[in-house]
């Protein structure tokens, strides 16, 4: 069992502090929140349940101590009992993705040790987190028997692009479940699913450091667990760090491709997709005021097309390379990457990652100009679109992922024989 995220003596101390029905992790990697307020929010959220619950709140507020803080209780016997525990601060060399992944592991380790019934983790920035978020993530697990509650956020049309254009449609095509945010980062999980993920994680981590977030939704889909979605409202996004975009892509796509490789036997037989139950009603996003400068993105795409042909030539088939060259010569206003081309690029990169055609780090970083090209094409197309049109556009793209899945399966099974 995976318990090395927190030292064994600390886990034993946590266990001695008493049993718990659920564990709630609240992380804010940019602005450390006061630990007691996390406990207060949790107590307020749990007060909405009919039966009194015992919970342990895990946060990373910088006041790490091996001991669990004394539980906060209200006067009467029907109030929830909430203890709190602060995690050690993340290492300075850790990227945000690694920090979230490690924090998840630590919460799972505590949940596993205490044998909790449910676990809720909130990794978004704190000032949006309300007791409603905790309740909405945990309630379907506690009261309705779901194993995974994935988040839905209220977003502007140019937010969550990697999710909308790669992660969500890829998850839908591979595992047949229409999830908006397969990599969360805010989730509610059952104790059963938590144990399953930890078991698999510890078995696979021997040689490689995996991002556990990439395997939560896929583990639930592959294991036949009950999955639903819940509306959480607006999620404040971190400002785009353009200088480290290739690192972000490398971390997120690398983790997704590794997880995809481990579940190949399962997803190859899945066709089509199903809509999942969704709780809560969506909020209307505020008016979209910003404009996107696509000029720089198209320039990056053209620079990549000029210089990375040798690298892409080892991953992409000749027809795709030809099409990319043609696109690089188009004027800005006519620049559009067709859906099928983008989908096949993602599938070919996943296959190249699996076959280790070139160094995995080179492969993942070389996708950056292509991603920027796709984002530019998407932004140009959605310039004047309303939210309904954006949803319809994403649905079309998701269908393209599903329609081209046979291409991925054929190349995955016979990479030498099937090379268009």
């Amino acid at each position, binding site marked *: 069992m995976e318990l090395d995220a927190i030292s064994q003596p600390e886990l034993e101390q946590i266990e001695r502090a008493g049993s718990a029905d659920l564990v709630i992790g609240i992380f804010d990697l940019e602005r450390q929140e006061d630990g007691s307020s996390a406990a207060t929010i949790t107590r307020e959220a749990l007060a909405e349940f009919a039966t009194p619950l015992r919970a342990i709140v895990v946060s990373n507020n910088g006041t790490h101590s091996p001991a669990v803080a004394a539980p906060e209780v209200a006067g009467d016997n029907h109030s929830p009992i909430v203890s709190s525990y602060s995690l050690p601060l993340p290492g300075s060399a850790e990227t945000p993705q690694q920090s979230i992944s490690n924090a998840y592991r630590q919460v799972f380790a505590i949940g596993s040790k205490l044998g909790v019934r449910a676990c809720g983790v909130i990794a978004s920035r704190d000032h949006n987190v309300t007791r409603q978020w905790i309740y909405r993530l945990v309630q379907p697990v506690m009261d309705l028997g779901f194993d995974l509650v994935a988040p839905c956020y209220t*977003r*502007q049309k*140019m*937010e*969550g*692009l*990697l*999710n909308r254009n790669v992660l969500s449609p890829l998850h839908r095509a591979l595992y047949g479940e229409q999830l908006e945010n397969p*990599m969360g*980062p805010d989730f509610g999980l059952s104790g059963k699913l938590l144990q399953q993920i930890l078991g698999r994680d510890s078995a696979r981590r021997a040689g490689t450091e995996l991002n556990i977030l990439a395997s939560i939704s896929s583990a639930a889909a592959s294991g036949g667990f009950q999955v639903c979605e819940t509306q959480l409202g607006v999620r404040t*996004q*971190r*400002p*785009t760090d*353009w*200088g480290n*975009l*290739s690192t*972000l892509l490398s971390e*997120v796509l690398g983790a997704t491709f590794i997880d995809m490789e481990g579940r190949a036997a399962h997803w190859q037989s899945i066709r089509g997709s199903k809509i999942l139950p969704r709780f809560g009603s969506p909020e209307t996003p505020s008016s*979209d*005021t*910003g*404009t*996107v400068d696509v000029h*720089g993105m198209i*320039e*990056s795409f053209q*620079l*990549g097309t*000029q*210089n*990375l042909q040798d*690298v892409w030539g*080892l991953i992409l088939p000749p027809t795709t390379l030809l099409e990319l060259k043609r696109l690089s010569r188009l004027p800005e206003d006519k620049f559009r990457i067709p859906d099928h081309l983008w989908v096949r690029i993602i599938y070919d990169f996943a296959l190249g990652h699996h076959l280790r*055609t*070139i*160094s995995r780090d*080179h492969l993942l*970083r*070389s996708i*950056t*100009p292509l991603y920027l090209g796709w*984002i530019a094409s998407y*932004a140009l197309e959605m310039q004047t679109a309303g939210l309904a049109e954006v949803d319809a556009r994403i649905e079309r793209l998701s269908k393209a992922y599903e329609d081209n899945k046979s291409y991925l399966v054929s190349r995955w099974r016979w990479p*030498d024989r099937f090379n268009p």
Partner: protein
Amino acid sequence: MWDQVGQALKLSTTKMLSQLAALLPGIVALVFAVLVAVLIALVVSAILRRSLAGFEFDRRVAEWGFPAVAEWSPSSSPTLLVTRAIAWIVILMGFLVGISAFDGALPSQFVVRLFTYLPDVAAAIVVLVAGSIIARFLARSVLIGAVNMNLQYARLLSVGVKWLVTVLAVTIAIERLGIGGGIIRLAFGILFGGIVLALALAVGLGSKDLVSRSLERETSKAAAPNMKEPVGHL
């Protein structure tokens, strides 16, 4: 007198013929050794060619990141290159065995010196192969990194890194072989310094407009957080 001349000629002819006769077994042994070596080379290369073809060696060499090997190879086939190289090594070994069949001290010394030189040749080959792999890997890393940083001179940087590492590897290999001595070190210093200077001049002077455009772009990117940028990835 004519009898003495005839006697002398007879003696010298006998001496020369006896010397030739003494060499004859050696020559026969040499020819025999070479013939046997050719036969072994043919058999070994046939087996090797079949094994490598079964292993899809040509395709794998390109996959491992050495497409240039195909360009150097006869008929653009690395399999043919390897089998021919092995065949010639076997024939050379047969030739050396044949030469050592001569009783003379000179050929034996030659063979001994040649065999003591072989480890240096092997070390030089290892250095060249490792250098080629490292050069290719670093060049690709620099190229991808520079393209992602939007540097217009990405390819120039990548080629520069590749040649720096290659020149370093070739210099180490030549020095290992004991060729050239101090001249190689001097030439390497001049060449290495020359490449760095050429890159510096190309980037600093020849491509100054290019550099200033890149820097301008970087500066404007640094100022981007002040603008309302609605793009988010996760």
